C-alpha cells in the first residue's frame, strides 16, 4: 500500500515536472522549435493535465487499489510528456505528436468502464477492455511506424523512422491499412463505454447512481470531441487548433466530475446540471440552425454575404433566445424531469386556484405532498415571534414530529418560512424537491402569514376576554369585600350597641333614645353600603340573569317589561348581558325620554340574545367614548355583536348577541 502511494506521488511529480518543462519552453528558457502548438493553448494543457493528476493523486492516497486513480495519473502523464519529446529531437516530437493523440481519449474512456468502484462490470467485460486496449496500442504503434513526411510547415524536418526497414515494410505493405479496423475498434470502445455507463445507471440506486450520473454527464464530451476532430479533419484536412482547447477542457471536466463523484461534494446538483446542459445544447443547436437558415436564405434572396444579412440573422437569433429557452426548458423538463415538471405545474395550478378564491392558501401543505408524491409529507410554518412551528390549523408544534422523515427548510429572502417533513428518499431527488419548494416559496409565505395573523388575532381576542373577565372578577371581589368587610363590621357594631342598651341600668335609660338613633344611623350606613355593592355588581346576578333584570326593572323610574329565561348561562355572559341592559335602560331614560322599555333575553342557537327597545325619541348612535360604544366593546370582548336600530322619532332598539357555548 505504501509503495503504491509512493508511486502515485512519483507519477504526479513527473507530470508536474513535464508541465514545468513545457512552461519553460514557452517562456524561452528551454529550446523550442517555432510554430509548434500555439502559446495560447499551453494554459489549457496545464489545466488538462494537472486536474486529473490532482484528482488521481487524491483518490490514490485514499484508495490506492482503485484503478481509476491510476488511469488518471498515467493518462495525464502520457499527455503531459509531449514537451519532453522536444528535448530528444524535433522529428520524434512531431512523430509522437501525430501518433499518440488517442491518448487524450484513452484514459477517459477507460474510466467509463470501471467507474465508480474501480472494477469492471463482469468477467466478460475483461474481453471488451482487452480488445479496446489492443486497438489503442495497435493504432498508436502503426501510426508511430508511419514513414510519410510531415505536413507543412515541417516538410523539411526528417521523419526519424524513415529508412527503418520495419517501418518501411509496414508503411508500404498492405499491413499499413490495418489502422482502419483499429480506428473502428477505438470507436467501438466508446460505444462500449457508453453501454457500461448505461448498465451501471440502470443497476445502481442512491449515491452510486448520482456518482455515475456525474461521470456520464462529463463523459458525453468524449464523443463530442471525436466528432469535432473528425469534422475538422474532414473540412480542413488537419485538426484545427481551436479544437484543442475543447479536448483539453474535456479532460479537466471529466477529472473534476470524477472528483465530485468521489468526494460527494455538491453531488446532488447533477440532475439540474444535466437538465441545464441538455437545455443549452438544444438551444444552441436550434439557434445555430436559425442563424444558418436566415443567412443562407437571405443570402440566396439578396445575393452575396452582405452585412445586412448577418445583422438580420443575429437579430433573429437574439429575439428567439429567451422564448426559445423557456420553451426548450419546458420540453426538457417534461421529457427528462417529469416529476419535477408535474410538481411545479401542480403548485402553479394551486396558485391560480388561490387567486380565484377557490382554495385557501393554508392548503399548500397538501399540494406539496401531492406534488412530491409523498402522502406523509407535512408542512409546518415557522413563527419567528414565538420561535416555534405551527401547522396549517394554527396548532403550535413545539418539536418537529420527524417520525422517520427528513426535514427541509423553506426560505424566502433568506428568512425561514416553513419546514417540510418528507420521506428521506426525496433528498436524493434534489431536483424535484428543490424545484417544487422553490416554486411554492411565495405560496408558503402567504400561508405562513395567514396562520401567524390568525394566531395573533386569536391571542388578542383571548387576552381581551381575559381582561374583561378580570374586570368582572374584580367587581365581584369588591362586592364581597363591601358585604363581608365594612357591612359586617357595622352590623357587629350595631349589635354591641344594642347589647349595651339592653344592659343599661334603669338610671341610665335616658340614654336609650340616643342609642336608638345611633343604631338607626348604623342601619342606614349598612343600607347605603348594600346599595353601593349592588351598583358594583348586583349580588342578584348570583340568582341568575332573570332575577337581576327584574330587580333592575323594579328600580327603574319608568315601567320596564322583562322577559328572560330561567335557565343559567356562564356567569360572565350573564354579567355582560346585565350591564348591556343596564346601560341601554339608562340611555332610554336619560337621553331618549322613553315612557316604556322592554328588556328581552332569550337563548338562540348557542347565543344569548338581549334586546332592549324603548318608545323614546330615537336617533341613538354609538359615538366614540359614549356609553353605547363602551357597550359595543364589552360585547365584542365576549365575541358577540351589537346592533342599534334607532330611526328618529321611532324609538331605539338595541340587539346584542352573546355567544354562550352550547
Amino acid at each position, binding site marked *: 500500500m505504501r509503495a503504491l502511494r509512493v508511486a502515485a506521488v512519483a507519477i504526479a511529480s513527473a507530470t508536474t515536472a513535464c508541465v514545468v518543462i513545457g512552461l519553460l519552453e514557452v517562456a524561452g528558457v528551454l529550446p523550442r522549435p517555432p510554430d509548434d502548438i500555439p502559446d495560447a493553448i499551453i494554459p489549457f494543457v496545464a489545466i488538462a493535465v494537472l486536474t486529473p493528476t490532482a484528482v488521481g493523486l487524491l483518490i490514490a492516497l485514499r484508495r490506492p487499489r482503485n484503478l481509476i486513480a491510476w488511469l488518471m495519473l498515467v493518462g495525464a502523464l502520457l499527455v503531459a510528456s509531449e514537451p519532453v519529446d522536444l528535448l530528444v529531437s524535433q522529428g520524434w516530437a512531431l512523430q509522437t505528436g501525430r501518433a499518440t493523440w488517442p491518448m487524450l481519449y484513452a484514459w477517459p474512456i477507460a474510466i467509463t468502464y470501471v467507474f465508480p468502484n474501480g472494477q469492471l462490470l463482469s468477467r466478460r467485460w475483461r474481453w471488451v477492455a482487452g480488445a479496446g486496449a489492443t486497438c489503442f496500442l495497435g493504432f498508436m504503434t502503426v501510426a508511430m511506424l508511419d514513414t510519410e513526411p510531415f505536413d507543412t510547415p515541417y516538410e523539411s524536418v526528417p521523419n526519424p523512422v524513415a529508412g527503418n526497414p520495419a517501418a518501411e515494410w509496414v508503411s508500404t505493405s498492405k499491413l499499413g491499412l490495418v489502422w482502419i479496423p483499429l480506428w473502428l475498434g477505438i470507436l467501438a470502445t466508446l460505444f462500449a463505454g457508453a453501454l457500461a455507463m448505461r448498465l451501471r445507471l440502470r443497476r445502481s440506486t442512491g449515491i452510486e447512481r448520482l456518482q455515475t450520473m456525474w461521470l456520464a454527464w462529463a463523459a458525453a464530451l468524449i464523443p463530442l470531441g471525436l466528432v469535432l476532430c473528425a469534422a475538422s479533419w474532414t473540412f480542413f484536412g488537419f485538426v484545427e487548433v481551436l479544437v484543442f482547447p475543447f479536448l483539453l477542457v474535456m479532460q479537466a471536466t471529466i477529472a473534476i466530475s470524477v472528483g465530485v463523484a468521489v468526494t460527494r461534494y455538491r453531488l446532488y446538483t447533477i440532475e439540474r446540471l444535466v437538465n441545464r446542459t441538455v437545455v443549452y445544447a438544444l438551444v444552441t443547436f436550434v439557434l445555430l440552425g436559425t442563424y444558418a437558415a436566415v443567412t443562407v436564405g437571405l443570402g440566396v434572396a439578396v445575393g452575396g454575404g452582405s452585412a445586412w444579412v448577418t445583422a438580420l440573422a443575429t437579430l433573429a437569433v437574439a429575439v428567439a433566445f429567451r422564448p426559445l429557452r423557456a420553451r426548450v426548458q419546458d420540453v426538457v423538463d417534461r421529457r427528462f424531469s417529469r416529476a419535477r415538471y408535474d410538481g411545479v405545474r401542480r403548485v402553479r395550478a394551486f396558485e391560480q386556484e388561490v387567486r380565484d378564491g377557490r382554495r385557501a392558501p393554508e392548503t399548500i401543505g397538501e399540494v406539496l405532498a401531492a406534488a412530491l408524491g409523498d402522502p406523509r409529507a407535512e408542512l409546518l410554518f415557522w413563527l419567528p415571534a414565538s420561535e416555534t412551528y405551527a401547522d396549517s390549523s394554527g396548532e403550535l408544534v413545539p418539536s418537529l414530529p420527524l417520525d422517520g422523515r427528513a426535514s427541509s427548510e423553506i426560505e424566502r429572502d433568506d428568512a425561514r418560512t416553513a419546514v417540510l417533513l418528507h420521506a428521506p428518499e426525496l433528498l436524493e431527488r434534489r431536483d424535484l424537491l428543490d424545484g417544487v419548494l422553490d416554486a411554492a416559496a411565495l405560496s408558503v409565505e402567504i400561508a405562513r402569514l395567514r396562520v401567524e395573523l390568525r394566531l395573533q388575532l386569536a391571542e388578542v381576542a383571548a387576552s381581551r376576554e381575559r381582561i374583561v373577565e378580570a374586570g368582572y372578577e374584580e367587581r365581584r371581589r369588591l362586592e364581597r369585600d363591601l358585604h363581608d368587610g365594612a357591612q359586617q363590621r357595622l352590623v*357587629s357594631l350595631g349589635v354591641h350597641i*344594642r347589647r349595651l342598651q339592653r344592659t343599661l341600668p334603669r338610671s341610665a335609660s335616658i340614654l336609650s333614645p340616643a342609642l336608638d338613633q345611633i343604631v338607626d344611623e348604623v342601619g342606614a350606613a349598612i343600607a347605603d353600603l348594600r346599595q353601593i355593592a349592588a351598583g358594583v355588581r348586583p*349580588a342578584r346576578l348570583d*340568582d341568575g340573569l332573570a*332575577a337581576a333584570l327584574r330587580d333592575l326593572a323594579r328600580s327603574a323610574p319608568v315601567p320596564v317589561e322583562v322577559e328572560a329565561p330561567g335557565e343559567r348561562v356562564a356567569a360572565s355572559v350573564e354579567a355582560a348581558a346585565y350591564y348591556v341592559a343596564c346601560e341601554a335602560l339608562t340611555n332610554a331614560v336619560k337621553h331618549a325620554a322613553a315612557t316604556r322599555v322592554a328588556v328581552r333575553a332569550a337563548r338562540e342557537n348557542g347565543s344569548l340574545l338581549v334586546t332592549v327597545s324603548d318608545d323614546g325619541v330615537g336617533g341613538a348612535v354609538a359615538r366614540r367614548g359614549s356609553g353605547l360604544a363602551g357597550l359595543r366593546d364589552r360585547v365584542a370582548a365576549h365575541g358577540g355583536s351589537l346592533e342599534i336600530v334607532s330611526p328618529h322619532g321611532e324609538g331605539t332598539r338595541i340587539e346584542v348577541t352573546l355567544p354562550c357555548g352550547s
Partner: protein
Amino acid sequence: MRLVIAEDAALLREGLAGLLEDAGHAVVARVGEADSLLAVVAEHQPELAIVDVRMPPTYEDEGMRAAVEIRRSYPETAVLVLSQHVESRHAVELVGSGGGFGYLLKDRVLDVDAFLDAVDRVAGGGSALDPEVVKHLLLPPHEDDALAALTPREREVLGLMAEGKTNAGIARQLWLTEKTVETHVSSILGKLGLPLDGDTHRRVLAVVTYLRKSSPTY
C-alpha cells in the same frame, strides 16, 4: 332554648351570642365554618342553629348548603340563616318547603325584639322570611290578576303573612285588632284561592308557595 351559632366574623358572633344569652337562651356552641357546624349540631342536637350564608373556605354558600343538610338530617333542629344581602332563591324554596326555617338579612338583628321573635318562631317550627325578600315576591303586581285584586291593606297583611308572622304579630305591627287581621286574612286567602286553614305555619307555607309560583324568578 339551646342553640348553636355559625358565623365567621368573631366580633359579630360574640355580639349575637351575647344578645341571645341576655334573652335567656343557651348558646351551646359557637363555630366559624360549615363543617364544624354540622359536627356541633350532631353533638348537641340543639333546637336552633343560626347560620351565616358565607363562610370559609370559599365564602360562597357553605352556610346555605349546611342549612339544607341540617334540615334533612336533624329535623328536630330548626335553622335561621343570616345573609348580608338578598342573594338566594333557595331561601324562598326552603321557607316554602316546610316549617323550622328562617332567612333574614343580618341587619335585622339590630331590631332586637323582632329578631328574638323570629328566633322563637323558627325554633317553634314556624317560618321567618326577610321583608326584603317578601317585597320582591309581591312585585310586580300586574303579572298576577289575583294579587292585583287585593287592596293595599290586604297586600300589606299578605306580606307580613309571608314573613311568617302570626295574626297577633301582624295586629301588633299594624296597630289593628286581631279580629280585623283575621278578616283580612280570610279575604286574602279567598281571593288567592287558598284553603282557609287555622294553622299559622301551614298558612305561611301556602302563601309563600303561591307567591313563589306567581313570581318566575323565585
